[in-house]
């Protein structure tokens, strides 16, 4: 029986030689139904063209490193099974809306800056002494923020967001979801530190609720929900008497 094969087209861009990115085709064996797109890239790098550049790490949908556009849709390539595409060819491109550094590698500096700006850690006005023990939480309190804590910073939501594509100043989905994760945490007291970033004109109000961020999230986080709830919260705080009270 003839060996099953598949065509993988990947973006190639060498900043020292190319003015614009181009697509290169590779015909590779599709030997196992459990193969994912990342396996195809690894096969190309190991056996066909060692110069192909891309990011990956855990290969199990946890690290968020291997996000790319697969046939125009933002995907974790370690979770995109080739059997879902075969016998069609698969086009792998870098995550859209980001500058391309080389081949499939994007510049994530902007996202890292935005992530840091919302202070994604627990902020306490005054730390308990260690001897006071742990901060206890009920299951209901954890359920308040649990889904937003699943974010793995893979940036698929930024690639899916046309608002971010048109205006890179927009804070964006994942950063807002993580801000909400900490704002909803009963141990956190940092809401007022995060509000200037969330509520400014490039914050949540830039979002016009396309909703695609939540569709493409590989971890079931709902960043669109986080953004709309933050809009409601900031409005309530602005409109209601005592809305700006200390939390």
């Amino acid at each position, binding site marked *: 029986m003839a060996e099953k094969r598949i065509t993988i087209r990947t973006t190639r861009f060498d900043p020292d030689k190319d003015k614009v990115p181009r697509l290169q085709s590779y015909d590779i064996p599709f030997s196992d139904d459990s193969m994912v797109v990342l396996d195809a890239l690894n096969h190309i790098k190991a056996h066909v063209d060692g110069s192909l550049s891309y990011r990956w790490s855990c290969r199990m949908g946890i690290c968020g490193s291997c996000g790319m556009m697969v046939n*125009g849709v933002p995907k974790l390539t370690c979770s995109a099974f080739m059997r879902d595409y075969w016998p069609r060819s698969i086009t792998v491109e870098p995550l859209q809306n980001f500058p391309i550094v080389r081949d499939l590698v994007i*510049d994530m500096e902007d996202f890292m800056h935005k992530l840091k700006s919302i202070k994604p850690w627990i902020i306490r006005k005054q730390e308990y002494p260690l001897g006071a023990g742990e901060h206890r939480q009920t299951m209901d309190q954890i359920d308040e923020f649990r889904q937003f804590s699943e974010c793995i910073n893979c940036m698929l939501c930024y690639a899916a967001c046309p608002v971010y594509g048109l205006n890179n100043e927009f804070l964006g989905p994942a950063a807002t979801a993580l801000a909400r994760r900490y704002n909803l945490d009963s141990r956190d007291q940092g809401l007022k530190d995060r509000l200037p970033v969330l509520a400014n004109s490039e914050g949540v109000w830039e979002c016009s609720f396309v909703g695609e961020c939540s569709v493409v999230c590989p971890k079931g986080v709902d960043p669109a929900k986080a953004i*709309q709830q933050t809009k409601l919260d900031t409005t309530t705080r602005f409109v209601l008497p005592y809305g700006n009270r200390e939390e």
Partner: protein
Amino acid sequence: MTEGDEAEASTGATPRVYKPEMPRGWWLRRRHYLLYMVREFTAVPMALWLLWLLAEIHRAASGPKAYYPAASPAFIVFSVICLGFAMYHSITFLSLAGVIIHLKFMGKPVPPRTIVGAMFGLWLVASVVIAAVLIGFAR
């Protein structure tokens, strides 16, 4: 690269990167984007219809004897199209209410489906009340 992307290769700074731009037809790439643009576009026919309503109110100011309602086939067709857009906007807007509103009852979160159902229920009640008032005045 995807057709329509325009090159903007940065120069000077290291490392040199390629900055793709959004193509004009980005909203035709995916069904979800197209539906979003339709939702945004609904504001245009609704605004036109409301402008017409303002003109009608102005016309009605000269008294009931001089007033005659617009009833041409073209106007009816225009109104039906506007109604379609208004329905699409209202249904999508109310369906999103369950996502946005975070309510608790007896310490437990109210399911989004209940919130959406309540919003549609209120919409129905409000529509019946307004229709009753308008029909009552017309008699």
